[in-house]
Each structure stands twice: as structure tokens, then as C-alpha cells.
């Protein structure tokens, strides 16, 4: 009954608001310095970390884990569904996919890079002030600072890159450069080179949702820029907080198992 009346109300509301206006009508609450307030703990609710592209459910890479860690299906987050790989890069993705159980940087607890950090199945927190915005990710303690008052360049490439931001109306626009070539976009082996340039757009769409868009450009890997988009959801549960997910020790068997003393020593 409750669901029925709620759906009806949503349907009526949808009819009343012209379609074009829906996305832009929302005006976010402001921070004390007058900017859209993005503070909060956010998380994607999709299967993009398995594969950015549309994909059906499939057996997971580790048979012994059965249905527990098999691949959930997803409608995809890539605009136009296809990633415009150059031929050699398309072949590399296939090879990555075949070897994903050992090559995916996530298996090794490596920093995820951008945009992958955003849609991994872990929350992240935005801590916002006027000159800097800190994005703190639960996975692997990833973190980056978005500099709002400068257009400086990174001295060297890094896993999480270098982020300069500015506001365009309701939208936080983050220009991410100096990303190294070692991260992947997902567990399906979608990849890029060190020429990667990501422009992210965070736009509040309701009190508890943001729209996230990332335009991905890398002329060594793709024939044209392409875009992903998805909503991000606020953790509204009481006392939500980021917890430690220090994964290096979860990856030690994968990374160093063959170097262990046999038989294993006690400790």
C-alpha cells in the first residue's frame, strides 16, 4: 500500500515537472561560504567495478567461492555502452581480462586511481572547505586533495593523480592529471595509459544523491574521449563512518606466498 502510494506520487510529480528541468532544478544546501555543500559519505550503487560496460551475470574468477563472489549483472555506466579502444588497446583489454585474477591492481591492494575509486564497493567521504576539498576513500586508505585555488601541476605521476577543482554553478568540476598507467578502470581489465586525463563533475541532484560524471581522454588508448555517469548515494544511516580497510595483509598471500618458508613458520 505504502509503496503503491509512493510510486503514484512520484509518477504524478514526474508528469508535472518538464523532463528537461528535472536534472537542473535542484539547488543544493550551501556551505557557510556559499558553495553547494557536498560534505558527506557517498557510495555508488552499481556493478561498474566489475565492468563499466553493460554485462550479464557470470561465474566469478574463483570457482571455489561459488555464488558468493560471482559477477553481478549491470546495465553499464558508459555513455553509448562502448569504450572506444584503439585496436592494440582493445587486444590488451582482452588479455587483461583473461589474467584478471592476478593482474588487477585491486587484487594486490594497490591504490585504485581515478575514476575507479569513486565506484568501488566502498564508501568515500567528502570533507569540503573553501580552498581544498579532501576525498577520502575507505578502500586502501586512498585519498586526494582537490585544490580549488590554484591550477598547479604535479611534479610526478601518481596512483591517485593530481586534482584541481572549480565550481560551475551547482557542479564541482575536478580536472585530474598526472595519473600513472598502472591502474585499471574495473575488474574486467579496462585500462588506460599515462596520457589519461579525467574531468569529473559532481552535481547534487537531491538532498541525498549526487550525479557523477567522468570524461575520459587518453589518445594513446582511445580513439576519442568517452564518458561514464552514475548517481552516488549518501550514507544516511545514523553514525555512518568510514572504517579502516587496510588491505595490504589481505594481498600478502597473492604477492609473497611463493616466497614463504616451507613449511610455514609459526609466529
Amino acid at each position, binding site marked *: 500500500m505504502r509503496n503503491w502510494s509512493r510510486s503514484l506520487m512520484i509518477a504524478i510529480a514526474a508528469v508535472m515537472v518538464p523532463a528537461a528541468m528535472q536534472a537542473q532544478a535542484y539547488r543544493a544546501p550551501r*556551505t*557557510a*561560504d556559499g558553495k553547494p*555543500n557536498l*560534505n558527506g559519505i557517498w557510495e555508488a550503487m552499481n556493478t561498474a567495478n566489475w565492468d563499466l560496460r553493460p554485462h550479464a551475470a557470470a561465474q566469478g574468477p574463483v570457482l571455489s567461492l561459488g555464488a558468493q563472489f560471482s559477477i553481478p549483472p549491470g546495465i553499464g555506466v558508459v555513455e553509448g555502452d562502448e569504450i572506444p579502444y584503439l585496436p592494440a588497446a582493445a587486444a590488451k583489454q582482452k588479455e587483461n581480462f583473461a589474467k584478471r585474477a592476478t593482474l588487477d591492481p585491486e587484487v*594486490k*591492494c*594497490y*591504490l585504485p586511481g581515478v575514476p575507479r575509486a569513486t565506484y568501488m564497493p566502498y564508501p568515500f*567521504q*567528502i*570533507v*569540503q*572547505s*573553501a*580552498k*581544498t576539498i*579532501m576525498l*577520502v576513500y575507505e578502500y*586502501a*586508505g*586512498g*585519498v586526494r*586533495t582537490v*585544490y580549488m585555488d590554484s591550477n*598547479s601541476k*604535479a*611534479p*610526478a605521476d*601518481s*596512483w*591517485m593523480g593530481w586534482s584541481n577543482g572549480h565550481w560551475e554553478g551547482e557542479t564541482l568540476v575536478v580536472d585530474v592529471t598526472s595519473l600513472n598507467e*598502472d591502474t585499471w578502470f574495473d575488474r574486467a581489465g579496462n585500462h588506460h595509459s599515462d596520457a589519461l586525463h579525467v574531468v569529473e563533475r559532481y552535481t547534487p541532484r537531491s538532498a541525498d544523491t549526487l550525479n557523477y560524471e567522468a570524461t575520459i581522454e587518453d589518445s594513446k588508448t582511445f580513439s576519442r574521449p568517452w564518458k561514464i555517469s552514475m548517481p552516488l548515494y549518501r550514507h544516511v544511516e545514523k*553514525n555512518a*563512518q*568510514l*572504517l*579502516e580497510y*587496510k588491505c*595490504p*595483509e589481505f*594481498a*600478502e598471500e597473492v*604477492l*609473497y606466498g611463493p*616466497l*614463504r*618458508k616451507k613449511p*610455514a*613458520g*609459526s*609466529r
Partner: protein
Amino acid sequence: MIQRFPVAASILAALIAAAMPAAAQTQSVAAKPATTAKTWTPPKTAEGVPDLQGVWTNATNTPLERPQNLGAKEFYTAEEAAQLEKAAAAAAARAEEGRQTEPGTAADVHYDLGQFGLARYQAKSIGNPRTSLIVGPEGRVPPLLPEAQKRQADRAALNRGHQFDGPENRPLSERCIIQGHEGPPMIPAGYNANLQIQQGPGYVAIMHEMVHDTRIISTDGRPHLAKNVRQFMGDSRGHWEGNTLVVDTTNFTDRTAFRGSSENLHVVERFTRTEDDTILYQFTVEDPSTWAKSWSAEIPMTKIDARIYEYACQEGNYGMRNTLNGARTTEKEEAGKSK
């Protein structure tokens, strides 16, 4: 290798302290860094709480524990402090100049922190009149209780002879899990002693350069996590007392083992911005399973006009691979000899 400067500096400090006339030592009433705090009003964030934001260093030449020969002497005189500072810088410079290795050879590969202004002796906060970071007449960590000694000994015994068996036999820092200085309490690191403080409504985040760990402290009065949720860096809750951020941390793991502590470690930290470029950082730790009484320290943190760059640890941890590989190779060689 990289710890050469601080080690040299603290040895030097001890030597100079030993050489000081006893009279000079006891006379010292040196400048407590507190007097300016009363007149100076810290800037506020847009939300109206003291603004602690920026990049800070807590690098110092002051040892955590007071050299034994200084007894109850808590402060150097201004002259003594200046002399120590000069001597530390000179020693560091000599160590650099006196390098015996031939440039361009593998043996000459070394960290040259001074070249980039990153050496400890170049940090502004280095001139601390305190003889130790630990405050009070004792100036030292209290002795471990018998149960804590036993805990430590048991742990060491389990690992003895197995130090190189596998990654879990190595220290947490080598495994890129946690660095000892990150705390809480935050102790100056031997190098890269930098942290960034970021504030949003109801939160203070502290990010350590090593190893990009961010402690997000809520200041909304919520309770600590459930008792069974244990974290290497514990679980921090903050509140404001006047211009001071007070942070209470519990829920540590028994593996955190801060100077022999148990999972009952309880840390209270106080952050007070006493000048535009200074935060006075004070902490008190207690753990009834480890020490008979609590102990406290204070460390000035200096604002630096700098940015924190990514310190990726796990991603480049060749050290672990090489350590284990080396141990296996040695074992093979030794097995070959005994045949």
C-alpha cells in the same frame, strides 16, 4: 640510512647535555610556549570553530624520552637550546660533507634530504626548549607492568627464529599496514614528518604523508564504535573546548602495540593553534594493562607552505619481496653447504 640525521642529532644532544654544567641545567626556567596563547585569537572556519587547516610538520630534534643524565630538568635555557640547534645542523652538514663514497657509484646512493629542504634540522619547529617531548619531572615512558612485559616477551618468543619466514613475521610498517608515528598519538616520524588537516562541518580529517592514512574525527558527540570493532588507528571522537580540539581514541587492535600497549590503549589528544603557524599538540595515553599510570607529551607542529605528495607504500614494496627472497636464497645456500 635515512635516519642518520635524527640519530646523530639526538646523540649530540645527549653529549652536550652531559657536558653542561649542572648549575646551568637546574637553573633553566626556559620559555614555556604558552604565554602568547592567551592574547592571540585563532582564525575560525566558516562554521565558526578554530581553523586548524593546512599542512603541518611535527619534525623535531627533541627526543620523546629525556636523556637519563638530565634528571628532572624539563627545559633547556634559551642559550642551551640555540647551541643544540646549531650543533645539530652542523653535525648533519658534516655528515653530508664527510661522505666517503665516490660519486656515481652504487655505494653513493643515499637520501639527500637537505638538498630539498626536507631534512629535520631544516624544519622550523626544530627549536624546542624541551629536553624531552614527554612532559613532567620523569620525562620518560613509565616502566611496563609485568603483564605487559610478558605480553611483549611472548610475542618476541613466537617470532624468534622465524623473522624472515613470511610477510606476517615482519613489522607492520614493512608490510605497509601502519607506520608507528601515525598513532594516535602522533609521534614525529624520522622523515616525511608531515600531515594535512582538513575540516568540514562536524569533521576534522588528519592525513599523514606516510602512509596516506586519514583519520576522520567526528565532532558531533556520537559514541565510539562497537567494542569488537578494532582498528590499527583506533576510533577517534572529537569535541571543542574553547579553542582546543580534544580527541578521544579507543578501539585499538592488540597489534597496534604502541610502545608495548594492549588493545585497552586510550589516547586523549589536544590541538591548540597558539600562533598563526603553530599548533601545540598535546597527548595523554593510558592503558591499565600496560602502565601503572598515564603519561603525557607535547609537540609543537609548524605550518609549512607545502603540499603533500602521494606516498604509495604497498605499490612499491620491493623491500618485502627482496627480504623474503634473500632469506630463501640464504637458506638454499646453507642447505647446499651442509650437504
